[in-house]
């Protein structure tokens, strides 16, 4: 069934007229031209398609578009504000927390959701949260470091 869906996308109001059962990932990537979220497995296992719905990380390949009515979606494209990188993006960049970069948007979005919920996560919490995001190049060590680094950086900012 074609439905009209009003939602917020990276801070801006948006409207779509689409078949409600279509998955968010494909609507983002084709209808909306936001190709940051990636297809990796199609079954919600790998996390390459991770975006935020109302600040919670979801696997966009599993979410029917009708479920986002009235909600707020944040994708990797919406993370940098006014051309300024989010501390997580900066930390991934500076600490070399990526290689081929294909899983990177999903990694950053999942970590972003974690930091929203828990600004100063312990290393064990980072690992637990990130565990279902797969990376084949083996950038894991630096991804954990980058997330910790970003958390520390953000803490400093809030104080300042």
């Amino acid at each position: 069934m074609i439905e009209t869906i009003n939602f917020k996308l990276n801070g801006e109001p948006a409207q779509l007229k689409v078949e409600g059962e279509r998955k968010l990932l494909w609507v983002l990537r084709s209808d909306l031209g936001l190709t940051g979220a990636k297809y990796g497995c199609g079954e919600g296992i790998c996390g390459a398609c991770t975006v935020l719905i109302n600040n919670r990380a979801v696997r966009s390949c599993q979410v029917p578009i009708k479920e986002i009515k009235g909600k707020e979606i944040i994708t990797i494209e919406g993370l940098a504000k006014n051309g300024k990188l989010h501390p997580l993006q900066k930390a991934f960049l500076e600490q070399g927390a990526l290689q081929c970069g294909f899983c990177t948007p999903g990694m950053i979005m999942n970590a972003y959701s974690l930091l929203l919920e828990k600004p100063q996560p312990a290393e064990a919490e980072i690992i637990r949260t990130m565990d279902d995001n797969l990376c084949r190049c083996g950038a894991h060590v630096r991804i954990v470091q980058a997330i910790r680094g970003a958390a520390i950086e953000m803490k400093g900012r809030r104080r300042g």
Partner: protein
Amino acid sequence: MKEHQSPDAFSLSRREFLKAIGGGIIVFFSSEDLEAQQRRSPGYQDLPADFNAFLRIGADGRVTCLTGKIEMGQGIVTSLAQMLADELDVSLDVVDMIMGDTDLCPWDMGTFGSRSTRFFGPPLREAAAEAKAILVGLASEHLRLNENQLTVKDGVVIDKNNSKTRVTYAELAKGKSIEKRLQKKPALKNVSELTIAGKPALQKDALAKVTGKAPFAGDIRVPGMLYARILRPPAHGARLKSVDTSALKNDKEVRVIQDGDLIAVLHPYPDGAEKALLKIKAEFDLPEAKVDPKTIFKHLLSVAPEGEVVTQGGNVNEGEKAAREAFEATYFNQYVAHAQIETHTALVRIDKDRVTVWASTQRPFAAKEEVAQALGIPSQRVRVITPFVGGGFGGKSQNMQAVEAARLAKLAGKPVQVAWTRQEAFFYDTFRPAAIVKIRSGVTQANQIVFWNYDVYFGGPRGAEQFYDIPHHRELSHGHYTGVPGAHPFRTGPWRAPGSNTNTFARESHIDIMAAKGGLDPLEFRLKNLKDERMIRVLKAAAEKFGWRPSPAPSGRGFGVACATDVGAYVATMAEVEVNRETGGVRVKRIVCAQDMGLAINPEGAKMQMEGSLTMGLGYALTEEVRFNGGQILDRNFRTYEIPRFSWLPKIETVLIENPGTPPAGGGEPSIVCMGGVIANAIFDATGARLFELPMTPERVKKTLTETKTKKT
């Protein structure tokens, strides 16, 4: 990496080639390694063949390096730029890398085997030095000063005596059109003069990658494009019996394409195509399954061709006579998938007689040939553009998805994207082959290895070369990793450090067996049987970092050691494991890896490659195996095919041996090769159980623990 528009660069004469890229100062160069390879490869004759890369200094002061190499996470977009910037005396920021575009970049055989820095690096540096010489010459005329009175800093040529007298590379390049083929070998800087190479650098592609803007093949959009889903057989060797597409007849958005073996649906949306494919009813005849993971090794041995000598010395029969004791063992490894997170993807657009392909490939020039052949057109009409590649590891050397997209684009008269699903990726992957290694060896009374008789079947020769100091040895390789007809029930191919993982697991396990029997510490036993100074040095460096305390295995501590040479690098790895005797589960707690790769151009990048290799290697050592029944692949997604995760992470420590006087070795692969052996040896040290088959799954470990216990009682 971006789509660079070139006016008419489809038939590439050198003149047009130059016209297409504009003026400036251009130095052409080639790598001897590539020259040798291209003679054996089809298609190179269509292109200017006397060089395979060039760099250009434009009137905007930007330096562009154009190469057919591609970036897939190994970091050469940065390390190559570093080498170039250093030799040319410009900052890294003004260097642009254009990679893997078959129209703009000269022919290249492909990106694999950790070759880029080793073989491409030196001529790249020479070309940069040559370009600098040209620029200094121009500056000398421009400033009316002797060349030896000039110095260069950051792209500015300056009078040594008066720093106000200066001219920039950009000013010098303006209005010029100078092209030069690198012929003589210009003097290169000494290592001590390098300011960019050898120092950590931010990855040049990182900004695009952390913002989601980096284009991968699946991210390219062109007007009117359709997304394809292709009907696939349930097993390799299956034959289509009947197909019924009538359910799609009234769907106006769907186009059904049937062309011989290729049956596909096309749709303006990828998920639309997926839905449509489900409506096709097809029946297949399944071939009888003749092999499975249990019978595959026997089958492979029965079809293995004669061995070819990898290395040999002395006479193994003589050696056997001198031995106090002989050791014989057989080692196995199962099929392993590449499992890059980006599946094989391609978009093909056909405009009249011109074809543009955007593909995730490690071999864009091979893709060009394959597409041309499939379409029955001259390859000059095909342009392959390689956006960023989301992981390769040897698995993007075949371009089946590009051929499929090309055929569909031609049949549909529209641009078509083929992006394999994860299930397709696990089906058409060129797996690392199941392989067998048989070793018979012996030691003298003094625990010197005196003979070594080695046969590897289907793993490939890489990593079988002997580096221990053994008077009588013979290493044979039977069948390559690509297999022989009738060997494997599906395709196999190169997988990160092809051959080396198989061979290193067998060799290093076997070395430990001999050490344990002799009651010697495994590190001490290795050092006793080595003369190669570089190997001795990496072993000692790893031991120092690890805090290795000698003890014969099994010591109960769960410590392991393994060493290897690969693509010119030396690597020694130590690991600490914990074995759960109830479940057979193995947890790797700590890994220390020391690597001597000669001059490390981007040490931080090299360490990232080491960490990546060590992490990835946990998978083939512990869990990764593609289960199958004949041509049917049973593991089709990450749910059952387990790759390493965050929760597996051991403490990883890497040591780069400073060896700047030795030319760069490969860096993308060496550190992965010890992972099977080092973990097997650590499991033995923890438990006394010796594993002979990879991966060392909990089931296999538990079974071996039980058998070891029974043997003892």
